[in-house]
């Protein structure tokens, strides 16, 4: 079955997601432009992770169509979709060192060590992982682990990268640094991504496009001002809080 011609990037139409026999998301429609990041905000339990899992092929869609670069993928198994899912917890393979973790996806496709090295070495540099190549993943800090997981995902040059609150467990400073690193790498490498978070500031920092998941639906905003103008997203409340915090009386 051939759907309508869609632009490069990720296009989702009429998607419904079921979990535990209940439809938690319905009529989900959005397009993530080629080389841009859709930041999706939503409260805990709103269905963000379920949506990403369905997009990645780790769960079945109850209805709808998923296209990646004009190719319908929703009937393909996860390993053939070209969509990489980055978990909240950086699940590095414990039996592999950092370098082997980075090369994992490449090694599935190629036995050519020189070719694999040519892909992995620039990533090590871009992500600041020099000196950690032979380290056991368990000896890394949370930020280092997340950088390796990020690098492992980038190494396979995914058509779409799905990030499920990847920095949620990091301390504020590391989190900020990782957000900046993500922006820089996503731009320099032209990544098409969906970045799911429940943190408003993170959403605004990493996104080019914006969406919110609530009440069983996913609303895509025209642009950043439209996203900020929707009171349901809490931007105005956040601004009001910080304005009040700066006053002598402090916030309520």
């Amino acid at each position, binding site marked *: 079955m051939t759907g309508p011609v869609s632009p490069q990037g990720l296009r989702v139409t009429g998607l419904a997601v079921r979990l535990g026999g209940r439809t938690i998301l319905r009529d989900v429609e959005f397009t993530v432009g080629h080389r841009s990041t859709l930041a999706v905000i939503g409260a805990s339990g709103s269905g963000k992770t379920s949506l990403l*899992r369905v997009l*990645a*092929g*780790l769960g079945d869609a109850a209805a709808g169509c998923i296209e990646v670069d004009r190719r319908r993928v929703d009937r393909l*198994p*996860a*390993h053939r*979709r070209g*969509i*990489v*899912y980055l*978990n909240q*917890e950086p*699940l590095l*393979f*414990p*039996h592999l060192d950092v370098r082997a973790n980075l090369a*994992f*996806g490449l090694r*599935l*496709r190629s036995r050519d060590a020189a070719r694999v090295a040519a892909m992995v070495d620039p990533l090590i540099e871009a992500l600041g992982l020099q000196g950690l190549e032979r380290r*056991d993943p*368990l000896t890394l800090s949370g930020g280092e682990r997340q950088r390796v997981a990020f690098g*492992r*995902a980038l190494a*396979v040059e995914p058509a779409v990268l*799905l990030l499920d609150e990847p920095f949620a467990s990091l301390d504020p400073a590391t989190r900020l640094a990782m957000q900046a690193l993500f922006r820089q790498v996503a731009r320099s490498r032209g990544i098409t991504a969906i970045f799911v978070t429940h943190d408003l500031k993170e959403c605004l920092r990493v996104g080019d496009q914006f969406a919110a998941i609530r009440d069983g639906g996913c609303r895509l905003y025209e642009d950043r001002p439209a996203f900020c103008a929707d009171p349901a997203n809490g931007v105005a409340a956040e601004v009001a809080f910080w304005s009040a915090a700066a006053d002598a009386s402090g916030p309520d």
Partner: protein
Amino acid sequence: MRRAAGIALWAAFLAPVALLLGWSFAWRWPWPAPLPERWQASAWTGLAATGGLGAAALRSLGIAGAVALVATSLGFVTSRSAVEARSGVALRWLLHLPFALSPVVLGVGLEYSFLRAGLAGHMVGVALAQGILAYAYAVILFCGLWNARTRAYLDGAATLGATPRQAWIRVLLPIARPLVVLCLVQTFLISWFDYALVLLIGEGRVATLTTSLYQFLLAGDLRLAAASGLILLLPPVIALAVRAQRRPPTFAGEWDL
């Protein structure tokens, strides 16, 4: 206090082995002498001269090796179904049943049908009967592997491009290796130390190291029984020694055994 408890533990574990060692080299060891009156190796030379014992040891090794390999492989492959099956709770209850039954009861229960099937009195029959226990143990052990973390690893590998087969070989097997080794050792020992099933299903025609040891005991030859008992202890001692040599597992997962 802790030191005393430690010494007591060591003594409790090592005393039976020390007694076996003493008896296997004793000429006479009258009570309450702390050591034998005279030492000699006649029990060991006697064992070497007992032609049947070598064959019994080889038979034990063959049966236990086969039981361990088959039970571990089948248990590993089928445990996921036991976890994910709709009737999972009932299935897991069923799998615990062989443990609730003693091998003697299991043997009595199986004897008639094995006899009708022509399996009684054969090594294959003994291995099959022990395999029921060993397989149940393997599945129960591997059920712990199928937790959210393992699934997340496999999901992660799949989205990185790994086919289900590649994910098994490159991710699941390496991270499950400590469990697989543990299962191999434990299922081997279930078979290696078994006496009741060998006796009941083997009908006295399948001689293993445990039945030989019991024969020596029945004949009142404590020295031969002690020497064959020490041979029986060799595999677990070797397994423990190998395990002690290994770097402790560093993976902070559920398989840090």
